[in-house]
């Protein structure tokens, strides 16, 4: 296969306690550790392994957002991607717009496989891969925990509610990755330095002429109500009394 496209979204690091901006306009990202969406990192790791096995010639990483996303793309390049594309936009991008942007890039790049995380940990939408497959008119295999390429098909083990399901899809296709697919590699310093010289194309979103699907406006953000501290009761009688007291029984 000639080319794999991998999406890398810049998100607040998984281990950072998310805070709401004091004016309720969104999540605080100033001075907060930002990283590649963990599922996307897994997608990239899988693409790199395909390349290392000789199943793919080129791995191209894509991010949509502001110029700060270059940081995540450079990390992707340091992991081993060949090229990067930053689709530049100042707007927040919802799954449908994201899918449309990817569709344009698939055409431009003649990609045969698109690997995306099953969802981004910031908005948890879990939609982009599915929408992209529909727009593209190609098969989708979501929640992959194992991928085996056989020429023109891919055998994918999916994590579904009842256990594991294995399906076979024709390529080109969209595959979205789950947590157990692999463990992404550490990046080596020499590769970080090399990555600074790898090509990173910046394309203004307007150049792709996709219709923006901005249909939802966020009005305000609020933290969830704080959970009250638990209390330890001595016996059932005290439990019942406490529940009654709170009007719960």
């Amino acid at each position, binding site marked *: 296969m000639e080319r794999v496209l991998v999406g890398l979204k810049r998100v607040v*690091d998984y*281990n950072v306690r998310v805070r709401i901006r004091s004016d309720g306009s969104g999540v605080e990202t100033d001075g*907060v*550790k930002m990283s*590649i969406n963990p599922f996307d990192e897994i997608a990239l790791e899988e693409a790199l392994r395909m390349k290392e096995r000789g199943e793919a010639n080129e791995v191209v990483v894509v991010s949509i957002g502001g110029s700060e996303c270059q940081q995540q793309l450079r990390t992707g390049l340091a992991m081993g991607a060949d090229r990067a594309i930053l689709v530049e936009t100042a707007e927040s991008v919802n799954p449908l717009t994201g899918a449309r942007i990817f569709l344009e890039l698939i055409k431009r790049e003649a990609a045969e496989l698109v690997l995306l995380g099953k969802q981004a940990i910031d908005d948890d939408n879990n939609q982009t891969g599915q929408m992209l497959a529909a727009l593209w008119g190609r098969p989708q295999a979501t929640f992959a925990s194992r991928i085996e390429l056989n020429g023109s098909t891919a055998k994918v083990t999916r994590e579904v509610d009842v256990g594991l399901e294995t399906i076979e899809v024709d390529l080109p296709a969209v595959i979205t990755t789950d947590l157990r697919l692999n463990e992404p590699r*550490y990046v080596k*310093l020499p590769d*970080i330095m090399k990555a600074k010289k790898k090509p990173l194309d910046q394309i203004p979103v307007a150049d792709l002429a996709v219709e923006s699907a901005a249909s939802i406006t966020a009005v305000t953000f609020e933290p969830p109500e704080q959970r009250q501290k638990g209390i330890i009761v001595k016996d059932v009688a005290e439990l019942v009394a406490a529940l009654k007291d709170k009007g719960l029984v």
Partner: protein
Amino acid sequence: MLVDELKSIVGTSGWTSDPDELLPHLTEWRDVFHGETLLMVSPGSTEQVSAVIRACAAGNTAVVPQGGNTGLCGGAIPDQTGQQVLLSLSRMNAIRCVSPNDFSMIVEAGCILADVQAAARQAARFFPLSLAAEGTCQIGGNLSTNAGGINVLRYGNARDQVLGLEVVLADGTIWNGLRGLRKDTAGYDIKHLFIGSEGTLGVITAANLRLYPEVRESQTAMIAVNSPQHAVDLLVELRGSLADQLQAFELIPSRAIRYLRRHMSALRMPFTDDYPWYVLLESSLGDDAQTLESALAAALEKRLGVDAVVAKNVSEQEGLWRIRHSISEVQKFEGVSLKHDVSVPLGKIGAFIEAAEAAVLKLMPDARIVAFGHIGDGNVHFNISQPKSWEGDRFREKAASLSNVVYEIVSSLQGSISAEHGIGQLKRELLKQYRGEEEIAVMKSIKAALDPGNILNPGKVL
């Protein structure tokens, strides 16, 4: 009866003599020291601590303060007479107040270190004291041993985090020195007497601690180096290029990595190749994420390091630190381990490790040396695992002669036989041997002045 009096001071939930409950308090982490006790009391307030001490002083009975019992020199373990009272600070675990605008907080001695860190974080502040035992050890224990840990390089050790103390003295007097001043030259600064005194001069009941602005973002890197001297050269180089940003700088030997691969295979190792030594460093983020990368690249160019990884997210940062924090634990799986917590002037670390290795291997060619630790502070845990095929006891018999050569080299380099773990009952003889008579005499007169009846942790330190 003293025992009855103590029981009535602390109330029913404040004492135990149940052997099962006592067991974890009478043995310690390394399983070297075992003690007995008259009674374990866990007072719930400073006033109760005071009453306990007053009663023990009247009854001429020794008191052994205990925090999280993670100390490594047997300082918190009573002797075997069964006549000493064990004073656990565990129930005094209130965070009295956090004052983010004063950059300080007042906590009781029994607060677990990790809880202190979390309370600071909750107020968007940073409490820098951090060590592998932080989930168990208590701030009172940390201060009483003047603990070091991983952030000494930038923030100093436990002593440097203290703005004030509340201490119960040997006669039961409560000294409230929680003032929290950053500048105070009114007379002797007596809080520093209690810090690092391992419970022999007073019982710390609360502390006013210094807080720092939160370190929002940091980077973690692991660098393969060819020798400890290269690690030190790397440190010097990076302190130049990163200045104040360098927060921790730890040495890890390849043997520790081999142990971890063998016994804790779930830990992920960043390098597939084996290198003789590694450095783990933490750097706060300056204006630009690339600063550390270019500083490291320049260092590798100068051949100070062979290879390096930089964690790309917090999970990886934590993963790298887990490697470092598992080293103490993993040595247990390789038989008896002889420990030397020593420090030498920074520039002499390379020379020390080289000389000590050579001397130990000359005495015992099959000894397995694990030299690791906070080399950014000139502190090495120069540990020796028993030869693989030996019986533990055979190795123990030779321990003294091995330790002797190590301490002799430390001494010849103007180092210390205890960098951060203290003296306890383990190193009393060594203290006498390696500290001058005049220094010991001053220590003795301080002890006699503050604890004339010798009831506070007798048999420890001096």
